[in-house]
């Protein structure tokens, strides 16, 4: 039954492109439909309309900013879901260190990550990553980069921190609850940026209408930056939340099965 199903799927799927021969555009054709209708507008007007040389950034946080807001929300949702799903205590009890000693095996013992030099990590590499994250965040509209990457970097910093330091007490000291709340605040900043322009009499997420005393072109930059900050906080919070939720459950003794 299943094999038959697979064969059918494969046949259908492989034959689809032959049927779609006329339908799909030639690869790399500059005049094909997806490359001409809407995208030309984005390429030609992104700089003047959004004040952002990076067109992808212009698309995701300005033209289609609404999508990205919900994308961040999806991140948040995933974090909350993981927390909610992994809330219960693990059933299996951890093997106690004394038992380990007795059996003479390194079941839990000193993991590789605990051998890393803490001082180098904490005082040198982590600040470096954080600085880089901030750079990526604020440079997103000009060149490659953006909120997601920055958030991911901050999350990675936390991961390093957790791995290097003692598991129970990381330096950031963000509990599951706090990080999850933080992950919610990020998209909220994003939503709020949109709401401010509504209160100022514009449409939702209309950066032109932000009530700030700066030049029109600057407003888009400010709007994009505000939104990117929201994304960063959201992503970082989510990653930290997931790490926290997982750390509670991981027992590092999975090698026995």
């Amino acid at each position: 039954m299943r094999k038959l199903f697979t064969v059918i799927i494969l046949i259908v799927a492989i034959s689809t492109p032959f049927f779609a021969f006329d339908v799909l555009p030639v690869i790399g054709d500059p005049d094909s439909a997806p490359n001409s209708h809407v995208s030309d507008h984005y390429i030609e007007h992104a700089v003047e309309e959004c004040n952002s040389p990076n067109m992808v950034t212009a698309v995701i946080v300005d033209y289609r900013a609404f999508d990205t807001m919900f994308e961040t929300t999806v991140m948040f949702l995933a974090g909350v879901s993981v927390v909610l799903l992994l809330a219960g205590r693990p059933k299996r009890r951890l093997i106690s260190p004394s038992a380990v000693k007795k059996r003479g095996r390194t079941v839990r013992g000193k993991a590789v990550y605990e051998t890393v030099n803490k001082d180098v990590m904490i005082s040198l590499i982590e600040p470096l990553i954080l600085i880089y994250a901030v750079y990526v965040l604020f440079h997103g509209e000009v060149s490659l980069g953006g909120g997601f990457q920055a958030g991911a970097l901050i999350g990675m910093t936390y991961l390093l921190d957790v791995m290097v330091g003692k598991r129970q007490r990381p330096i950031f000291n963000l509990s599951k609850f706090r990080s999850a709340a933080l992950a919610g605040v990020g998209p909220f900043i994003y939503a709020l940026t949109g709401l401010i322009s509504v209160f100022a009499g514009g449409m939702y997420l209309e950066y032109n209408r932000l009530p700030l005393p700066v030049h029109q072109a600057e407003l888009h930059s400010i709007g994009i930056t505000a939104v990117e900050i929201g994304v960063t906080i959201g992503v970082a919070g989510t990653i930290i939340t997931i790490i926290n939720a997982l750390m509670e459950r991981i027992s590092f003794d999975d090698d026995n099965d």
Partner: protein
Amino acid sequence: MMITISTFLAEKGIYLLTFILLSLGVAGIVTCNNYMKKLICMNIMQVAVIFLFLCLGQKSKGTIPVAVEGLEKAADYINPLPHGLMLTAIVVSLGTTAVGLSLLLRIREKYGTIEEDDLLMRQELLSMEERQRRKQELQRIDT
């Protein structure tokens, strides 16, 4: 004939690959017995769609869509829209995978297995036990 095939491969061959990737993913989800493998196949499937979208945005002689002095024509940059869209799709697939993995963790904890047939058998056993217990309870109430 050869020319048609080579033209086809040159112009649209990439779509064939993405569709094969897609169908491998779907087939894997349907046929694999192991839930983890199913999850991996799910990711393969999503990646296939991402490729498909990115193929649509490709332009020969186009550069990355970051505005540079001197290049102002639309033909000079590749299409930024699919990239923007796929960023969203990637994040969504990431979220789905996160939820899937945590579900898997719970399944593993509860049933001790992530093989589908094994799991279904255990579920059956559980519900049979439940029914048995219920019957006994009812009998106790009757007597």
